[in-house]
């Protein structure tokens, strides 16, 4: 079966000379809920940018459901939805426009966009705020809009780069429920998060990256079970000291 995402020896060097991704290889089967962990600057966001077209890979190969994400970027991008870490949104556009325009870029007809936008506005409790400009919204509401935008084309592969950073518990739980539901429906999800509790609750498979390389990969049980919990496994893999060692 063709994997949802296949990354082979990805390397990304910025024009400044900084090597953000040294050598990353990953395979994510269709239907997986995949946690992509690592400290700040480990290369997670750069890898995501290379997958989605925001950054140009220096070398290596990325395939989305078997389609080359660089050579056949248009076909590949139809299958992906990205919720970025930063709010890359026109601050003067309103919440509904932001979601609707994204659907338009993906070639969705007006009736399809309306149906899908209505659904997402309701699902993320955005109806009272849908006519407000993005800049007028609170941090949590902004996050909901960006999430709705990522899901408007009902992508087969959903990439969430720290989607719950700075949001309240309520939205976090709404999002968890929704992600579990669409994953059960067959959607593949790649999630990065600094909340290990979130990753432990949602993901079945985990990769830990450090200094631009995958330093640990396996099922959640394999990783968490071997070292007495995901947090310890994460700290050991990234070269930091686990609590029980640091406390000695």
């Amino acid at each position, binding site marked *: 079966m063709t994997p949802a995402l296949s990354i082979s020896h990805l390397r990304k060097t910025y024009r400044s000379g900084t090597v953000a991704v040294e050598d990353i290889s990953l395979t994510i089967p269709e239907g997986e809920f995949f946690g992509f962990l690592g400290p700040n600057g480990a290369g997670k966001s750069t890898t995501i940018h290379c997958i989605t077209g*925001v950054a140009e890979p220096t070398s290596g190969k990325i395939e989305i459901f078997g389609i080359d994400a660089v050579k056949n970027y248009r076909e590949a991008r139809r299958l992906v939805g990205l919720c970025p870490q930063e709010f*890359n949104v026109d601050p003067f556009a309103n919440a509904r426009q932001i979601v609707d*325009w994204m659907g338009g870029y*993906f070639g969705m007809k007006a009736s399809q966009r309306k149906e899908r936008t209505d659904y997402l506005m309701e699902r993320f409790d955005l109806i009272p705020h849908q006519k407000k400009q993005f800049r007028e919204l609170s941090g949590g509401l902004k996050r909901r809009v960006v999430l709705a935008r990522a899901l408007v084309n009902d992508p087969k592969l959903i990439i969430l780069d720290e989607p719950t950073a700075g949001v309240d518990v309520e939205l976090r739980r709404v999002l968890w429920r929704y992600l579990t539901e669409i994953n059960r429906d067959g959607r593949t999800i790649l999630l990065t998060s600094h909340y290990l509790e979130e990753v432990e609750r949602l993901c079945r498979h985990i990769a830990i990256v450090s200094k631009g390389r995958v330093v640990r990969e396996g099922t959640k049980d394999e990783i968490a079970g071997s070292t007495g919990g995901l947090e310890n496994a994460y700290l050991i893999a990234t070269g930091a000291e686990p609590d029980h060692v640091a406390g000695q």
Partner: protein
Amino acid sequence: MWRGNEMNQAMGINWIGLYTMVRREASRMARIPVQAFIAPWISALLFIFIFGSVVGGRISQIGGHRYLEFVLPGVLMLNIVNAAFIQASTAIYFSRFIKFVEELLVAPLSYVEMILGSLSVVVLRATVTGIGILLMGIGFGATHIESWPMFLFWIVSVSTVFGLLGLIVGLWSKSFEQLNMPVVFLLTPLSMVGGVFNTIEMLPAKLQWLAYANPFFYFINGIRGAMIGFDEAPQGLGIGLTLGLLVVLGVTAWRLYAKGYGLRE
């Protein structure tokens, strides 16, 4: 319910995506009507007043035309050039600055579609600006149209040329200061000495070659020919130059988009 994976769109032109780019930019333009349309129209109105009532009466006719009739096509062209350049350069720069250009980068849009989407709005803004000035001119009895097809050709082609230039500058700029440099050091000086206010004959003989070497002269000469039937150089020369610039700037813009210059990390 919409299912993205059921989308069965041929990988030809993403017309809906293109149209969405136009809708989005039109919405941005609608947020700034004073800057986009009212300012150039007021500026043209002042030109009509100054050159029609204040200065025009003291200047003899040029080629059988009143001075205001002679000047107005040039004023119209200046405003088209400004509208096109500012629309293209600010739109792409602002989207890079705020980073919402990433919405286009992650979408299934080709580079040609991204450029065409931007240019469509450029032409729309320039045409509305130009038609507004034309209507004012006609209203004050200061102009007419000799050839509608040529008038539209000059509006569309020149706005596209400066739209492409605006896109390139918008991709290159790293600050608002840089964004304004071409307007200050290139567009304004060249347009002012491009024959808006004078014929080539009025220039000292030794400086006349400067006008012939200035592309703005051919743009102004072209639209003046289309509006009042007065020209000082063969129209074919201006058409050839404009088409040549379209090709050169079009290929340059496409190459920059394809390389991700100023767009991708």
